[in-house]
């Protein structure tokens, strides 16, 4: 029974994949985990991964919530982050002097913009019942032009000490700032989910909207709320991305990140059709994508073939994560267990088979 529970546990697959990737990296060189102190900050493969994946992790968290409540994905997250960060840069550059207060203030303004973007997408999805992907396609298409106009038609430069330190290292702090910001964000988000019923409500709405309404949950408000939260996530991701880059490139900032964010949600074992979700899974999924990218570089896969390798890996992963594969695997494990435990405890194992069979079926139903 115990083993079965682990198999059904959502985070098992992404963790297994992560473990396999790390093993490959270790085989390539045993110094994979080695860490040194450079310029007062920790340096090594692991900090690099945490640093590189920070925006993706934050977006994947918001994407999970939206996926759960609305059964669809927001493909405008990267563009939303570009718009919010262009506002951030605008406000910072308009200030006479860049102090910590102006940076924080500008960040809060960009969060408001993120909320507005989330409310816009959310209204289309929750009130007008537009398919999430279609609703967010509007911003996906037009958003970078909007950011370009906010930028004043040039890519502005954020060359000042404070934003530079936010994008790299604050002297005296041994960890790169984006990593710290990501950790703070994850903690705040888990507190939010702990002290509110947001998770329960989002799942209810995602599984059965009518049943949720009958139970006194307003699906419109819940969906809208998840999109607004994703808007804030975009603002945070945009803030981190632009401080890392040191200048606002409305064309290339966080380009194609929405696809990776959706992929992270899927690798995390979450059904893209909505319903039950695991934030932990998505976070692990996001780090898995980052590790995968870096593993391919570490293995020195040819420049031309690197994308094909990534695609093959993800196809295998998606097949493994599919309900069909999970069901088959569960049955296979059962069969082996039945052989091992043998004739002595036959009635017990039969009983287990029956109950577990129904469990598997249930999960299939949910995911369809």
């Amino acid at each position, binding site marked *: 029974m115990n083993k079965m529970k682990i198999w059904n546990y959502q985070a098992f697959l992404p963790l297994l994949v992560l473990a396999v990737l790390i093993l490959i990296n270790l085989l390539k060189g045993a110094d994979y985990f080695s860490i040194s102190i450079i310029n007062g900050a920790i*340096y090594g493969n692991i900090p690099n991964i945490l640093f*590189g994946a920070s925006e993706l992790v934050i977006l994947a968290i918001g994407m999970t919530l939206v996926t759960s409540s609305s059964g669809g994905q927001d493909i405008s997250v990267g563009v939303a982050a570009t718009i919010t960060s262009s506002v951030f840069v605008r406000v910072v550059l308009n200030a006479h002097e860049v102090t910590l207060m102006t940076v924080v203030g500008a960040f809060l303004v960009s969060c408001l913009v993120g909320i507005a973007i989330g409310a816009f997408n959310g209204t289309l999805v929750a009130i007008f019942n537009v398919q999430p992907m279609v609703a967010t396609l509007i911003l996906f298409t037009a958003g970078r032009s909007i950011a370009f106009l906010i930028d004043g038609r*040039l890519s502005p430069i954020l060359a000042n000490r404070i934003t530079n330190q936010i994008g790299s290292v604050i002297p005296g702090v041994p960890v790169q700032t984006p990593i710290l910001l990501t950790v703070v964000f994850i903690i705040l988000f888990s507190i939010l989910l702990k002290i509110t019923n947001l998770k329960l409500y989002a799942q209810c709405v995602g599984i059965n909207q009518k049943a949720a309404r009958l139970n006194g949950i307003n699906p419109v408000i819940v969906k809208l709320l998840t999109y607004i939260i994703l808007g804030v996530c975009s603002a945070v991701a945009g803030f981190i991305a632009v401080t890392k880059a040191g*200048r606002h490139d409305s*064309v290339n900032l966080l*380009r194609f990140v929405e696809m990776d964010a959706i992929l992270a949600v899927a690798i995390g074992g979450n059904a893209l059709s909505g319903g039950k979700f695991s934030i932990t899974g998505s976070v692990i999924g996001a780090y898995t994508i980052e590790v995968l990218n870096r593993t391919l570089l570490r293995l020195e896969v040819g*420049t031309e073939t*690197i994308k094909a390798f990534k695609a093959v890996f993800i196809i295998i992963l998606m097949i493994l994560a599919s309900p069909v594969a999970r069901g088959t695997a569960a049955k296979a494990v059962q069969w082996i267990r039945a052989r091992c435990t043998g004739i002595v405890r036959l009635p017990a194992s039969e009983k287990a088979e029956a109950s577990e069979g129904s469990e598997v079926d249930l999960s299939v139903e949910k995911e369809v």
Partner: protein
Amino acid sequence: MAFSIKRILTVFVLLLAVTGLVVAAPLIKVGIVNLPPEESGYRQANVEDMNTVFSKANGYDARQTNTGDNSEQIAAAMGYIRDGVDYLLISAANASGWDTVLQSAKKAGVIVFLFDRLIQTDPSNYQAALVSDMAAEGEMAVNWLLSQKLPYYNVILIRGQLGSAAELGRSAAVLKARDAGKLKIVADGTGGDSWSLEEARKVVEAAIAAGKDFNVIYAENDGMAQGAVQALDAAGITHGKNGKVKIIGFDFNRFALRNVQAGYWDCDVQCSPRQAAEISSWIKAHQNGKPLPKGIIYQKEMLVDTTTITDEIILKMGINADPGKGVITR
């Protein structure tokens, strides 16, 4: 009375006709089909340049269509031909599908110039094309590098979007020098389709983690060079004028030029978006009865390093925002 009014009217009409002729005659009708300015900093400078050069003040009646959609571009070009423009300037979103347009331009007697981007067609279908010579840009950078007299050349090559004209041209020079045994490529990566800063950073981080010994970063645009330098900074590896690793970038972004000026990077190669002045000079000469150039014409482009860079170059030739003198963009 009636007679005098008639007379005044006749004089008035005559005057109008004469002034009308004087004003209308020198305006040259030009149709410009271009990509949208939000496509890149390069395109922004390009569109701006077209607007300033092909203005009423310079004697042009110019109309411009900026779209990234090939079929919209083709429709706009057809419209310009119908409207009877004298010259048609095209920077195509897609290299194919233009034969019909070029044929009808020929029939209507419209002279076609291509700028920045070539079209896959018979050269007889257009008058001339003014483009950047990506291969020459690469050669310029490699020649500069080899003239630095480094004890050895271990290069990290960071390519742009694979298969793009810029990537093919700029990579070719490095690959040629490697085949000639003049340098070694210790890592070969790409910033992907978006010429991504983050991807470039990862390429260099992977090379550092693998313990590779390198002293040159050849990044095929400024954004990727910036990402590569971030990776060096985080790992505590020196670069620039007095550092270990030589940094080469492309495109002449003003932030990159300021970085070169500050000795934070070593060299940057121009990829000029300003074709308008040269095309305008062809048109003006043609109006005076001189022949037009034919076929593919390459723009003259330059390379700057820490010794040759000047404020004037940064202000005149650079693209995108200027961070200001002495400001380093990390």
